[in-house]
């Protein structure tokens, strides 16, 4: 398949015999000088590189090669082990040489390459005429149509293809697809997946999933968070440091948010979450609740008529949900209010407005903060600390919300 111009890397599955095959079957065409195109940067002695998707793939292959130059196991196994250790080569080597290897293999859900070939241990379900029954499609197949993996489970090639396709496309799984047999946790290696998948689009998606998980589980790599940017930053050691992508976006390597000195990463994350939650909560309060015109507790109406009786035992006010005026003059017009313009009702609503102003103020700050964050994302600007503002908001308005929201005292009578 000539994929040079179509895809980022070739997925030629025909060269299983080639000795230098890294098993990935992701090959990058052209120049051999690996890494030469990488963009090196440094901010105040914090060295890092910006990697394109091609660079990432190349880096992944290099990692596997490096381990394989020391450890003599199949490349497909190396890959699964590396992934198990989140691509920490040192950790893998340490466990490989100092620990119980069989345990290591079983923890990584891979069959030990040192076990004597035992594929034939599991006796295939053979029928009288030398055909095998596939336990997925329940069809009898000649043995040539059946495919087994390391654990010995065999299904027909069509069922394998369909199974893998479902996992990749519908469930977005890459590195972690396990055997199709019930309660078998052995992972299907990338080589087998690439051999069994025919559709180039499914192959491509698989490669992307692999690249994605490579970056996401590797502590020395982080995707640039800028929308639609596909570069990743590679560092020598993870730290709370600003890094600049090729797209000029500057972000914190440690947490991936816009550079936020002097606020600590976890505080920032806390704040973003709180603001998200709060603005949702507050919007909901604004849209769905009112306060009792007499005792001011927040009330929520869940259907029913307009006649409300405050459940606060020391209040028990009778009022109308629509105009907030006292109920009495409404008489028996349970569902439509005809007193909206009466003075009493107007006064009640004025009072309500004042109390709502506090909520509005809070919402305003909250939204402003969110918009601020949003615009920063698009303008690539470093932003000044918003810490004091946040704290100020918290002191003044949070308590208001918290106190009010918990007191759902009023309900209309049944």
């Amino acid at each position, binding site marked *: 398949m000539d994929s040079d111009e*179509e*895809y*980022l890397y070739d997925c030629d599955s025909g060269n299983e015999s080639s000795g230098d095959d890294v098993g990935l079957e992701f090959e990058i065409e052209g120049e051999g000088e690996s890494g030469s195109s990488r963009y090196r940067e440094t901010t105040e002695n914090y060295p890092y590189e910006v990697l394109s*998707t091609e660079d990432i793939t190349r880096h992944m292959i290099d990692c596997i090669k490096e381990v394989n130059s020391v450890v003599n196991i199949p490349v497909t196994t190396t890959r699964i082990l590396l992934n198990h250790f989140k691509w920490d080569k040192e950790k893998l080597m340490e466990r490989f040489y100092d620990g119980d290897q069989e345990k290591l293999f079983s923890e990584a859900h891979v069959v030990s390459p040192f076990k004597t070939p035992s594929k034939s241990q599991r006796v295939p379900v053979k029928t009288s005429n030398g055909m095998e029954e596939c336990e997925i499609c329940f069809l009898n197949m000649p043995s040539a149509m059946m495919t087994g993996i390391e654990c010995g489970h065999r299904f027909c090639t*069509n069922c394998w293809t369909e199974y893998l396709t479902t996992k990749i496309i*519908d469930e977005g799984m890459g590195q972690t697809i396990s055997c*199709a047999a*019930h309660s078998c946790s052995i992972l299907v290696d990338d080589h087998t997946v690439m051999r069994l998948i025919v559709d180039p689009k499914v192959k491509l*998606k698989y490669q992307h999933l692999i690249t994605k998980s490579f970056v996401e589980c590797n502590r020395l790599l982080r995707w640039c968070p800028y929308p639609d940017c*596909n570069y990743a930053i590679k560092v020598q050691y993870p730290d709370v440091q600003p890094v600049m992508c090729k797209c000029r976006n500057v972000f914190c390597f440690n947490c991936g948010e816009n550079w936020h000195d002097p606020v600590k990463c976890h505080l920032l994350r806390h704040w973003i979450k709180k603001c998200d939650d709060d603005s949702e909560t507050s919007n909901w309060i604004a849209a769905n609740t009112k306060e009792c015109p007499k005792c001011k507790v927040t009330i929520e109406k869940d259907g029913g008529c307009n006649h409300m009786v405050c459940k606060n035992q020391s209040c028990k006010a009778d009022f109308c949900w629509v105009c907030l005026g006292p109920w009495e003059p409404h008489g028996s017009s349970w569902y439509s209010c005809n007193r909206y313009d009466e003075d009493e009702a107007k006064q009640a609503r004025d009072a309500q407005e004042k109390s709502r102003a506090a909520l509005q103020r809070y919402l305003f700050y909250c939204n402003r903060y969110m918009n601020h964050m949003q615009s920063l994302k698009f303008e690539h600007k470093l932003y000044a600390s918003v810490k004091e503002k946040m704290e100020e908001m918290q002191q003044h308005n949070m308590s208001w919300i918290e106190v009010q929201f918990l007191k759902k005292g009023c309900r209309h009578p049944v």
Partner: protein
Amino acid sequence: MPMFTKLAHKTSTAAKSSGQTAAKTAAAAAAAKGNVTSPAGKHFLDNTRWQKRLQKELMSLLKEPPPGVTVDVDQAHTKLTEWVVHMEGAAGTLYEGEKFQLQFKFSPKYPFDSPEVIFVGENIPIHPHIYSNGHICLSILTEDWSPALSVQAICLSIISMLSSCKEKKRPPDNSYYVKTCSANPKKTKWWYHDDTV
């Protein structure tokens, strides 16, 4: 290979013919980060293949049903993708003499997608893993499903789940779950906290 039918991936051919190199590379790069929703689009199972499998399952459930299990054949024949299975509480268990009904619904992606299985009818077994709306908390129905499992295997699991029960009671979160869950139990994010009951 007379019974063998080739799989058809309906979306793959259409995509090949358009040769916008730059756009594709960009899409490929975007997909690497997961920005593209589904590069291969929907894929379909070969209809006749899964219908054959369902038919075979139906036959074997008729011929050698697990103890106390009978499948409503007429119902299954009218609609192959929706079965009703009658189940009797096994002798010597807490459910002895009780009769239950299980409903199976198969999606077009069966057996790669697990069937939707719930208890229906008058009598929903009172069990710590069965909700009063018929939903069953059983891992092989979602996370631990394998296409090599079958209706037969599910029936056997449910029978053993019932038979090993020591105290008839509803799950602790029954009233909350029943009020808030989706009609389809497969939409529930189950957490299988104890497999001992």
